[in-house]
């Protein structure tokens, strides 16, 4: 069954179109405007053409060096996050109870970190990881390990990664669990009759069934970790030094801290283009899955 062609449907979409255009297109035009100008305060602007972009994309300049540092730092962070959270999420999804009251309990407890305001997530770990008053920091220090996330870059990174794992692994797990739930019992029975090993069941039944949700999970986690701002901002403020200054934090420093409008705008646009490209991959996968589902149902 196909959707009917009806251009009057635009009337239903118009309000959304207008409000999102107001909140997205208008500000982006401002950004484009700033990105080609230079200002020395007093609302005096001078045409600068593609100057900021040239500087930004050239790693030998101050701005470019700073941008690429933050970019690699952010990409490294996203990579670490995915490498830890995806396998752990799958493991937790497989370990989820299948029936009884423990299912609801596990779901509720797992979802809790996802619903905590991001700045509070930062606060929780800021307190929890402190050497003097935090349980984690205190225990680690008393095990004889020198650990101080405000002074040592590596410790800061470890803390942020553990915090993100704590915050978001449940999302991967819940998505995988939704995929696992859709597997009919008959598949498992068949596998048992065939004498399939646990690993074979995972490889040939569970993993293929989780493929699509897993893709969604990977993309969501990538996007969100690529845009991470609040949690590290609260926990470390981008420090020590610049060790945890991710792209978002750097951008906000540049735009609202130093009011370097032209540079910040150029950086915003490049950042946005990267996001747009990943978004397109995400959309293709999402809608490709939908189309196939409709094809099967028809």
């Amino acid at each position, binding site marked *: 069954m196909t959707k009917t062609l009806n251009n009057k449907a635009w009337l239903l*979409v118009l309000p959304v179109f207008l409000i999102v255009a107001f909140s997205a297109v208008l500000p982006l035009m401002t950004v484009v405007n700033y990105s080609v100008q230079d200002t020395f305060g007093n609302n005096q602007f001078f045409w600068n053409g593609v100057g900021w972009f040239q500087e930004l994309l050239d790693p030998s300049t101050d701005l470019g060096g700073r941008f690429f540092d933050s970019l690699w730092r952010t990409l490294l962070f996203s990579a670490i996050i995915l490498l830890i959270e995806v396998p752990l999420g799958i493991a937790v999804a497989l370990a989820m109870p299948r029936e009884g009251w423990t299912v609801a309990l596990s779901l509720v407890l797992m979802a809790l970190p996802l619903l905590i305001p991001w700045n509070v997530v930062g606060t929780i770990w800021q*307190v929890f990881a402190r050497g003097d008053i935090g349980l984690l920091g205190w225990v680690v220090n008393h095990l004889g390990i020198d650990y101080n996330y405000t002074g040592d870059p590596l410790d800061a990174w470890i803390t942020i990664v553990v915090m993100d794992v704590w915050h978001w692994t449940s999302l991967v797990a819940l998505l995988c669990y939704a995929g696992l739930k859709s597997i009919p019992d008959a598949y498992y029975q068949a596998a048992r009759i065939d004498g399939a090993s646990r690993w074979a069941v995972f490889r040939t039944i569970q993993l293929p069934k989780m493929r699509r949700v897993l893709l969604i999970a990977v993309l969501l986690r990538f996007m969100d970790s690529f845009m991470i701002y609040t949690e590290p901002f609260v926990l470390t403020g981008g420090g020590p030094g610049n060790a945890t200054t991710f792209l978002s934090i750097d951008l906000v420093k540049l735009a609202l801290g130093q009011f370097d409008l032209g540079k910040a705008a150029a950086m915003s646009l490049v950042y946005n283009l990267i996001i747009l490209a990943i978004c397109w991959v995400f959309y293709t996968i999402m809608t490709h899955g939908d189309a196939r589902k409709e094809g099967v149902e028809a």
Partner: protein
Amino acid sequence: MTDSVAIRPSDVKASAAPLAANKAVAGPRVNGRVIVMTLYLLFLMLPIYWLVNMSLKTNTEITSGLTLWPQNITFDNYITIFTDRSWYSGYINSLTYVLINTVLSISFALPAAYAFSRYRFLGDKHLFFWLLTNRMAPPAVFALPFFNLYSAIGLFDTPWAVALAHCLFNVPLAVWILEGFMSGVPREIDETAAIDGYSFPRFFVKIFMPLIASGVGVAAFFCFMFSWVELLLARTLTSVAAKPISATMTRTVSASGMDWGLLAAAGVLTIIPGALVIWFVRNYIAKGFALGRV
């Protein structure tokens, strides 16, 4: 809920006789699974336990040494928050813009989601994609232009500024989630109602809305949540009058010489709205985060 990845017949003979339940495959692993699950849940709960623990202590007890539970339980921190205007107004401000935003997002998104799920129209796919890009847009990019925009139209430091700014990601989110739920309702229902003489608005409110009630609930919950957890835009667009609780918390940390107990209590109180509704949405969490596509 299902997806369409086909299991090749050579891998699994799905037609085999159905005998015992799924348990049999998982059976011998139960212990391993319980251990993994228990450890994971412990890991999730420990930091929260520590926050609650600290919120019930006095500052002297917090700084004087590590205690696993409060020696003298005190509710002073909570009392301070509920009686000091600079604290509780933060919660009121946050709730105000979050509620405005939720109502706005859902009412804008409902008709649009219906259009996307039922009709093809000029540019529908592009529009749907464009909405998604805004859900994914980094707030850091928008902080500065929003600041200029809302200052220019005189909404700066009002709940409306934050509520409208959060529409940037919440309207697309609501459209995607609602579209997912609406596509699950067979189109025959629309046609039958039309034949029965229902006008479109009456059909939408009387017949269609009850069918997607859970979808509306889930979409509203996620709009509420994403607006509630956001800090960057909320902080940038307010200064005094509409300052959200998240901003109140960050300022107090740096200004008042680390009042840990108070900070912890404020944190615990921000978790409560999520914790209250979690039970009702527990089966929809994955669906909501995946924009209705699971």
